[in-house]
């Protein structure tokens, strides 16, 4: 296959991944890497490098829209970014020392979780709140706009959220994904941040987390311009289309289709990893 055939193919796959990622809220990065390695036989390290770059593009593009709506909390974001960027450095160093077969299996497990998360839809629970000393110390409590005027919220279990964020950063650096799902779990479930604030703040944080490991990927030679170019442009184009379609889309059906696709990829990644084919 020549570049003239390969590049449009990668662009198309990335655009579909970006579109599905935006529609389901899981992000495009998590699908691009398995698609490139399983369908096109790309080495997982090049795929991870290209995917990570696309993650920065979609996060920064989408964050711009969310920030304008006044949902994201830049203090929570900045505070937790200490954990995610340290985790990302750690993850990126691990990635350079981990055999590709093990990377593939870990990737498969993360995909399985994503499939499960996607099929289940968003979780919702009653939020009871213990005051948290760290939340007050770091002024994490905030408010978001609602039809009835600004709605105030308090943040709890900051230590648990911080630890989870380190884990999210490590996975992001290890696999070249945004790990938005884990970031949302850390804020929404552990810290009891309102769901909308969690998702938008997570998106806001993804770019900074990814930039922390991108530096290491760049110096290690993982970011290959010929491959990263169609991946970045494709995922970006797809995610813009996906975000526009979001209103009025039959999200429930889409989620199930996405869960199915991701589930198959998960099994395939684990299988190839165990067999040592990658």
């Amino acid at each position: 296959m020549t570049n003239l055939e390969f590049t449009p193919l990668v662009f198309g796959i990335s655009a579909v991944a970006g579109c599905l990622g935006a529609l389901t809220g899981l992000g495009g990065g998590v699908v691009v890497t398995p698609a490139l390695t399983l369908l096109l036989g790309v080495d997982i390290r090049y795929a991870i490098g290209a995917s990570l770059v696309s993650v920065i593009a979609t996060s920064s593009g989408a964050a711009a829209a969310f920030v304008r709506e006044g949902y994201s909390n830049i203090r929570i974001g900045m505070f937790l970014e200490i954990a995610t960027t340290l985790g990302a450095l750690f993850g990126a160093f691990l990635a350079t020392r981990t055999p590709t077969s093990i990377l593939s299996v870990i990737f498969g497990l993360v995909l399985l979780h994503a499939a499960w998360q996607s099929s289940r839809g968003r979780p919702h629970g009653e939020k009871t709140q213990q005051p948290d000393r760290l939340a007050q110390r770091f002024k994490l409590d905030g408010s978001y706009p609602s039809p009835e005027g600004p709605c105030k919220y308090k943040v709890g279990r900051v230590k648990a959220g911080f630890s989870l964020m380190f884990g999210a950063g490590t996975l992001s650096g290890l696999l070249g994904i945004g790990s938005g799902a884990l970031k949302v779990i850390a804020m929404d479930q552990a810290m009891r941040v309102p769901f909308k604030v969690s998702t938008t703040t997570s998106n806001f944080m993804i770019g900074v987390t990814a930039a922390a490991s991108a530096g290491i990927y760049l110096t290690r030679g993982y970011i290959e311009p010929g491959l990263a170019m169609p991946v970045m442009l494709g995922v970006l184009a797809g995610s813009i289309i996906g975000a526009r379609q979001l209103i009025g889309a039959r999200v429930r059906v889409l989620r199930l289709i996405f869960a199915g696709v991701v589930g198959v990829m998960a099994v395939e990644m684990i299988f190839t990893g165990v067999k040592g084919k990658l």
Partner: protein
Amino acid sequence: MTDQRLEAIISVLLRTGVLISAAVVLLGGSCFLLKHGHEQPEYHVFHGTPETYRSISSVIHSVGPSNCQDIIQFGLLLLILTPVARVAFSLAGFALEHDGTYVALTSIVLAILIYSLAGPH
């Protein structure tokens, strides 16, 4: 300077960064396909990219009209630097708000990012 004002400016910064880097990558990509369209890509074996693509200084120094991959890599570098610029900008914003705690926290994040991009690995 309020948090809302800061967030509004940051959103413009992020969008501009992504648009400029996408335009540069597109330019380099078109040039790459024109020049190397009929070559076979070899991404199934990992060699690692050439040294000139591996650091900020070498990417900036080698960028020019002669090598299309250099232009792509320069665009990708701009993209990677966009979140770094947003953290640097937040730092300035928190300083204007006279918020010492967040100036300190943001400085830590910025230091980690600079270490990743410029540090010896």
